């Protein structure tokens, strides 16, 4: 067991950190948060400087962690343009990879994943968006909700129902790549989020949207499995967001405690809080790296992945709340309050903590390892 990253990855981490410190200034983070504006220029800049390197998953994790520790809204925004790509990578045709992923890889395009529907956040198998095959195309109608990148993406990897599927709800679902410029496609940007306000979220409505049949990912009826496989990958990157958020809140709290001097830092109550924060972050990082190492070696363990995601959400929220308690009322305006608002989404998106607990326990009951 080796707990050290290679020199190359350590240098990469340093490079990302320097970029974040230079570009994610508190003023800029505050502006994008207040205006709920997607930082497209920063996305392009991060891409140009090679900080979002999709060819190495460890580098992606490191970028997410480091950038989110400086500002979660901006950090997630610049690392999310590839969201959903693994579905095409693992199950899509060469044509789809070439036509769609190459444009995202080159920093030209942004993509997203459209799974959640207005009536069922966690209930993936309950998807009702219909895709009817007519000749060499599918005709899609339905709605999607809370779709990250929904209104800025060039295309969306979309879960649709192509048949009733022998009475089992999770059968009969398929995945289509849908161009957002298609006739009948409409994305409505949702505003007024608690946090991660630099990221963009949309409600999608599709009315008889025509999609070429060749845009089907893999086989018809296998969509549920593809999406579940995707979640087992993406949850690790989401856990990295949580680690970054917690680390960012902790760094600021530690700085503040030191600045206040012995009268504050000398109190055991304060020291215990700091110790609890640091311990949770360390434990979360370890379980996340363990889950990542299984996945990146093509031996994913869904239970450990979900443990990482659940723990990362809880740690981010815990550390952000404790940091504000330590800071007191002066932090009612500033970086820490923004981080607190950003943290809560980690327990909701990409599988709520409750869903993660179900995944963990069901795997354990089937003989998975704890």
């Amino acid at each position, binding site marked *: 067991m080796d707990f050290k990253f290679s020199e190359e990855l350590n240098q990469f981490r340093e490079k990302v950190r320097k970029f974040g410190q230079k570009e994610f200034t508190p003023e800029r983070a505050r502006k994008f948060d*207040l205006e709920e504006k997607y930082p497209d220029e920063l996305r392009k800049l991060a891409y140009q400087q090679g900080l979002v390197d999709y060819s190495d998953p460890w580098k992606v994790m490191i970028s997410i962690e480091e950038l989110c520790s400086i500002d979660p809204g901006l950090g997630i925004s610049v690392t999310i343009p590839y969201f959903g790509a693994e579905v095409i990578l693992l199950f899509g045709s060469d044509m789809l990879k070439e036509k769609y992923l190459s444009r995202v890889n080159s920093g030209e395009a942004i993509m997203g994943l459209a799974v*959640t529907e207005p*009536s*069922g*956040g*966690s*209930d993936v*198998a*309950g998807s009702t968006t219909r895709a009817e095959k007519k000749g060499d195309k599918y005709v899609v109608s339905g709605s999607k*909700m*809370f779709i990250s990148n929904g209104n800025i993406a060039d295309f969306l990897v979309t879960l649709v129902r192509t048949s009733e599927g022998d009475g089992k709800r999770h059968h009969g679902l398929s995945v289509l790549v849908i161009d957002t410029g298609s006739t009948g496609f409409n994305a409505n940007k*949702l505003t*007024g*989020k*608690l*946090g991660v306000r630099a990221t963009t979220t949309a409600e999608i409505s599709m009315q008889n949207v025509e999609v070429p049949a060749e845009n089907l990912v893999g086989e018809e009826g296998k969509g549920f499995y593809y999406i579940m496989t995707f979640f087992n990958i993406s949850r690790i990157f989401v856990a990295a967001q949580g680690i970054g958020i917690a680390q960012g809140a902790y760094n600021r709290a530690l700085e503040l405690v030191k600045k*206040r001097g012995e009268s*504050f830092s000398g*109190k*055991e*109550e*304060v020291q215990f809080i700091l110790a609890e924060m640091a311990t949770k972050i360390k434990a979360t990082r370890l379980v996340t790296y363990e889950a990542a190492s299984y996945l990146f070696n093509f031996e994913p363990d869904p239970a450990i992945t979900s443990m990482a995601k659940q723990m990362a959400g809880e740690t981010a*929220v815990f550390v952000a*709340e404790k940091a*504000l*308690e330590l*800071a*007191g*009322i*002066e*932090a*009612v*305006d500033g970086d820490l*309050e923004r981080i*607190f*608002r950003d943290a*809560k*989404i980690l*327990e*909701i*998106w990409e599988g*709520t*903590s*409750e869903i993660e*607990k179900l995944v963990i326990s069901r795997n354990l009951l089937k003989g998975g390892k704890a």
Partner: protein
Amino acid sequence: MSSEITDILRASAREFISKSVPSGENGLEKSGITAELRKKLADQGFLNIALSPEAGGAGLEIEPYIAVLEEFSRVEPSIAMEIMLINSVAGKLLGHFEDGMEMLRKTASGEKSFIVSVPGEYVKNSVHSKEATLSGDVPVAVGGSPEYLIMNEPAGRTLLVRSGISFRKFQKPLGFRALSWGKVEIKDGQYEKVGDRSLENIFLSGINLEVSAIALGIAEGAIEKTIEYTKVRKVFNTSLKDFGPVASAMSRMKTEIELLRTAITSESVHENQEMIRHKSLELALNASRAAVQYHGGYGYFEAFGIEKLYRDSMTMKMMFGGLKQDLILHKKIYGSESGFL
């Protein structure tokens, strides 16, 4: 047991909220508490509810007063906070001298408005006075309009500053956004000392029940909305309420709320006020966090009015919790100074 007057006031507060407080898109947070709304609150007797008749108030006892704070907090905690700042902060400080009484009367009738510096162990108000004027900075103040300022100075005195106030408003503070938050710069401001009571002391131990009532109201608002939501929201073709962990969490929190309400309305309330305050602040944060969680993506958006309660309860903890507050509780429990190392 609540008195008849308390029941009537609770009902009036509910009616006022339904008729006069904007709902949806996070209620008052966009417009703030306007002069018009302040006037309406005054006309209905809420703004001056616990002030003495000389200050233009109804002079009501603590029980109906905190019941009103609790009712407003279920939907719009900012209103409750404003009522508390007038009745329990300005009311305790300004009623001891003639000019102050006049100012209080105008404030309670909605004609005037004020801000108050928020004391905190590490909030440093750096001001210096010369003869009749004062200059310096106050890092955090909250309230209505900055027509006058009540502040604590480092030496421990509480001052009323009538002029020379420049208020730099925070654009989007964490919580209680219908109020004004900001930094204050004072330049040659006319000031006077108000009474012997320090503002810090009032925040630390003079408003325990008011703080508890606001926190309890937030917890109630959050959990009641979530209980209703979990009855109608379905996942996996099943109501959310039918899932064991959801029903358990809601039942546990509702139980804690009812126990706290029993404590806050009991005859021994004054005896246990430090404990009630501590538990209320904790419960508000736990309940509002759970409410966001069980509302899922919808709870994360302002339009549902849930995330606001989470922000407000966190702000309450920052404003009324903290290490000094813990020491007060420790002393209450042990009977002597404890837990200071």
